[in-house]
């Protein structure tokens, strides 16, 4: 009887940690500031993300117009045809897999370095990308942060402000998601 209860508890625990987790309040920070312009910087606070600890599948998606800039004019430029053309390409998304899943123990508290490979779709272009991520496991909660840069030209984002050096050609992207 005791063995049965123990087995049931163990099974439920494994099932719990194996469940795919989602959030609708992840954040993405976009930093394309340069030495001549400190304004192209924004945050999106309504990013949808998922993490499947069993398979290592990681995904996120964001509405481009959800990026909040401090300056209204820069926000307009960001959404305009010279940058993201968000009328035509309203979302960005990433789908990938953790390639070193065996080194991450989602059942044990700790901080783990993850390597993620997948595809990023932005401005209607889909490119393969490798992301470094730090995953912190705390009880049932997983916190993942990934900092990386992208080349805007890879995604055919090439407006005059970028050519003039007012916007970084390789902006820094920080994705921060907590799965509870």
């Amino acid at each position, binding site marked *: 009887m005791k063995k049965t209860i123990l087995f049931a508890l163990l099974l439920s625990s494994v099932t719990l940690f194996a469940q795919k987790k989602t959030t*609708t309040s992840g954040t993405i920070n976009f930093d394309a500031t340069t030495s001549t312009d400190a304004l192209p910087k924004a945050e999106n*606070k309504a990013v*949808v993300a998922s993490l499947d600890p069993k398979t290592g599948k990681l995904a996120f998606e964001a509405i481009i117009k*959800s990026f909040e800039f401090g300056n209204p004019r820069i926000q307009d430029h960001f959404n305009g045809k010279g940058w993201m053309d968000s009328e035509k390409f*309203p979302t960005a998304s990433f789908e990938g897999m953790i390639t070193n899943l065996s080194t991450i123990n989602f059942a044990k508290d700790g901080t783990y370095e993850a390597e993620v490979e997948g595809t990023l779709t932005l401005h209607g272009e889909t490119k393969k990308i490798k992301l470094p991520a730090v995953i912190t496991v705390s009880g049932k909660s997983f916190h993942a942060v990934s900092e990386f840069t992208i080349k805007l030209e890879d995604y055919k984002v090439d407006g005059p402000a970028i050519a003039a050096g007012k916007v970084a050609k390789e902006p820094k992207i920080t994705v921060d998601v907590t799965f509870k």
Partner: protein
Amino acid sequence: MNKPRSSIVKKILIATGLILLVGAGVVWYIFNEKFEDTATVKADQSKNATELLSEFRTDLTNANKQYTEKILSVKGTVSEIEKADTTFNIKMSDSTGAYLIFAFQAKNQQDLLSIKEGDIISVKGSCSGGTFSKILETFFVAFKRCVIEK
């Protein structure tokens, strides 16, 4: 003969100075321009949360045309509150799982502390548009720079 020439040079210098001053003023204005506080902006439209979600689910393209970048006042029931280090989001969902998500201005987050799931509230914010989430397999509509309407 020298006097008129010196007067012209003086006028050119003054005009150049004025142009530079105006130019600097325009640049300063652009760099320091901020969004108006949503609390003081009049809403373009007032909507019920369930009806708004229904419009996005029924015709996403048309709803995006109609509401994106508009200031909307939305009344509905809080289905979820999501807090993180720097963010404070409130959600209103319908029976299909589709949801509206409101991201609040940092300076207004204090007003949210007393709000709990099940409360009926009115939120004013800038609609960022809606989409179908492939991850969640449902529709969602996002809002930014939100404030609670009292």
